[in-house]
């Protein structure tokens, strides 16, 4: 007989909130570096930071998914009906898909870019490799660029839905879902 658990594994909680903060930065830097009226030098530096951060996010995501698979997850509250459980699970699947697609499409874009600029992950001795076989392929770069932007929009929508669901269930049904993702006892 297994005892029921109330929250996710501590590592999952740390990674969940780390990714949440990282995504805020990635969205902000991504939108700013493309749209803001800034100097070429600042734009170039921001691109390099965004690329390096994307590599870190990818690794944190892999660790997050690994932890999720390797550890037990708390069951959804009984108060949720079958349809809500289905929607929650589907939402999470889409969230993970979008989360993984973002850095992968970014990586593909950088690898196929005619610029061929390397991605140093904040230090000169970590040179993140390009995906082989796509160098200077403008078609693939354009495709990856479109996927990156469309997925970013989808991910933003999914995150909004994710947060809204937590708030909505709390207000409407007094279900404290966020306690599953923190160290509170209840």
């Amino acid at each position: 007989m297994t005892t029921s658990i109330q929250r996710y594994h501590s590592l999952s909680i740390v990674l969940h909130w780390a990714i949440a903060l990282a995504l805020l930065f990635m969205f902000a830097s991504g939108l700013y570096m493309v749209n803001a009226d800034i100097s070429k030098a600042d734009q170039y530096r921001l691109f390099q930071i965004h690329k390096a951060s994307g590599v870190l996010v990818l690794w944190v995501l892999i660790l997050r998914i690994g932890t999720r698979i390797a550890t037990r997850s708390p069951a959804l509250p009984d108060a949720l009906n079958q349809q809500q459980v289905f929607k929650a699970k589907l939402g999470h699947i889409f969230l993970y898909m979008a989360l993984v697609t973002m850095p992968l499409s970014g990586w593909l874009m950088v690898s196929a870019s005619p610029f061929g600029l390397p991605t140093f992950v904040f230090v000169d001795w970590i040179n993140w490799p390009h995906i082989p076989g796509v160098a200077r392929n403008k078609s693939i770069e354009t495709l990856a660029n479109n996927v990156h932007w469309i997925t970013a929009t989808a991910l933003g929508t999914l995150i909004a839905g994710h947060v809204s669901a937590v708030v909505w269930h709390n207000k409407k049904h007094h279900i404290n879902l966020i306690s599953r993702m923190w160290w509170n006892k209840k």
Partner: protein
Amino acid sequence: MKTSVNSTFLNRTFPMGMLLSFSVVVYLSLATTVVQAELKSTQQSGTVSFSGQHAGMNFQGKFERWQATLNLPPQSNPQIIATFYMNSAKTGDSIYDSTLPEFDWFDVENHALGTFVSTKIEITEEGYQVLGDLTIKNITQPVSFTLTDSQDKLSTRFGINRLDYKIGWESDPDADWVSKTISISMVINK
């Protein structure tokens, strides 16, 4: 009679052999001042550098391996031949240094060497006016520059259009990021 006295006097004071030797020494020292011997130079005795702008920021780099042979006027058949190893170009910026060897930039895999061969060298007030062919990525373009001759060194600085050599041709043909004009500098210590 007077002449023979003087001649005898000279012969006594400066024997003929001594005079001849002296003349040869004077001639040779003058000759070496005017006509320099062939000058060979490498990264040990000079610098070949390049500079430009990327994203509005100045960058500078140098070839860490090159060699040049200079036979300057008034020597007969004056010529300058220089060879530089493209994969030795370093800027100190890891992103630039990783990108420069790539296909669209220096393409070092297919074109390991860049060369300069002069076609005409004329003496000028500052030193020399040099015309020649600069070959990068197997593309040869004529260039001209003034080679300034100071006491201890020869130096020059001239600009090339990187697009003439298909450098960054695919990546940045409109020079949105990297300046079209790249300055080449050379200093050779004598």
